[in-house]
């Protein structure tokens, strides 16, 4: 076997086995309430093998639950891009705007989703828009900041071309500023998507809406701990998948 194949398949497999061993050991020693890998699989089998079944609001196949979460994330994410992209361009293009709003951005950026959600509930009175609001508010900052940084780091050479040709403001934006910034913007989008997915669990746990996060919290309250692990694994897998997909989009933009 070549070392390349060893690196690519065998070593990750060994890592996974290591985790399963530690997990089993933990469940049999210090954490008796932690379901072992085998128990987790037995109790979760139906959710994985029939991923789209629906028995009730909170009792559904894991992919169906993940789909609800993804739709919610998509709404929040798109809202984040719709607000964050122009905001980032304004921050990067206009010094007065930057002076006025950058401190506010820096101030709002580190606020946790757990803090925004109650405020969203107060504003919207309903859990669904509150969750989307929270996702958007937490996820938009990487887009805002990356876009602003991207605009500011456009090579003076490119701008000089536009100046010599006396391009109008609109043409300067469309032909030079936006294309030159695009790679930064898409890095922002990828980071924003990761954040949006991170926030979804908190949002669903607090609002109790159906989805992977809501399911996780409900199963914790019903003492079905194996389903917590199932949810955690699903969140991880979907998050990884989203990041890879967005990475592909990003690479495409950067190479064009």
């Amino acid at each position, binding site marked *: 076997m070549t070392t390349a194949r060893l690196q690519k398949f065998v070593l990750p497999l060994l890592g996974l086995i290591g985790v399963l061993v530690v997990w089993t050991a933990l469940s049999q020693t210090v954490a008796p309430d932690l379901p072992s890998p085998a128990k987790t699989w037995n109790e979760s089998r139906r959710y994985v093998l029939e991923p789209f079944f629906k028995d009730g609001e909170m009792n559904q196949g894991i992919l169906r639950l993940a789909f609800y979460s993804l739709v919610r994330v998509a709404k929040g994410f798109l809202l984040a891009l719709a607000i964050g992209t122009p905001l980032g361009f304004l921050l990067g293009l206009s010094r007065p705007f930057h002076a006025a709003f950058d401190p506010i951005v820096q101030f709002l950026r580190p606020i946790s989703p757990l803090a925004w959600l109650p405020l969203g509930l107060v504003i919207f009175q309903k859990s669904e828009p509150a969750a989307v609001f929270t996702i958007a508010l937490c996820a938009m900052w990487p887009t805002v900041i990356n876009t602003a940084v991207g605009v500011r780091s456009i090579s003076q050479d490119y701008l000089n*071309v536009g100046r010599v040709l006396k391009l109008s403001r609109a043409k300067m934006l469309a032909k030079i500023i936006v294309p030159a910034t695009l790679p930064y913007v898409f890095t922002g989008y990828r980071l924003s998507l990761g954040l949006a997915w991170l926030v979804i669990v908190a949002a669903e746990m607090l609002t109790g809406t159906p989805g992977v996060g809501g399911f996780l919290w409900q199963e914790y309250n019903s003492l079905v701990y194996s389903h917590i692990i199932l949810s955690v694994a699903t969140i991880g897998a979907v998050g990884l998948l989203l990041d890879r997909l967005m990475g592909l989009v990003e690479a495409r933009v950067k190479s064009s």
Partner: protein
Amino acid sequence: MPYLEVRELEKTYVTPRDATHVLGGVNLAIEEREFVAVVGYSGSGKTTLVSLIAGLIPSDAGEIVLDGAPVTEPGPERGIVFQQYSLLPWMTVYENVALAVDAVNPGLPGADRRRLTEEFIALVNLTPAAWKRPRQLSGGMRQRVAVARGFAMRPKLLLMDEPFSAVDALTRTTLQDELLRIWNEHRSTVILITNDVDEAILLADRIYPMTPGPGAVLGPAIEVGLPRPRRRRHMSLEPAYQKARQAIVEFLRAARTNR
């Protein structure tokens, strides 16, 4: 009054820590359809001079008058071929040239603008590469796109800032010959900035040597008495060539030792 007149042009770059006096009173005069070269050592302030004439940076003193109008801001009537090509990497060769054609011919119908764009691409022999992006081109091809874009601006004055310094010696020779041919066809007014004395003599009608900075100035212009159209072959054997070369080299050497 000459077509382009530069009088007592001064420029100092000021940073919080210190100030660099780059140009100390540059004088320059060019007639219409004249090809003038400015030759000097690297770092003497040649690019600063180009940026000032282009209007990309403000001067501290002196004035620049092109065709009766003082230069205050950049504009396509002073086209530039930048040292680092400055092609837009997200655009194809065609789009890079079309950007210039569209900018200076806003009233022209689309079909005519397309034809013009194709003409300028053909001028530098890049028609087969028209749909490639700069990344897919060699350094020499990129510089040809930049030259095509410069001519596509139909400028009153074309500024070329060490256009061939980033390409290898063999490619440089080809590009110089090509520029010679294009200029013979178009006869635009050109200022070529270079550190290559032979390049200056091959291409220019007159050559201004630049003293090394700080406070660089231009020496008296040296006429290149070679007839046009010029050919590279045997040119270096002509007395006029050797006379011009000697005058430039002597001026530059003296300027360096007198500092």
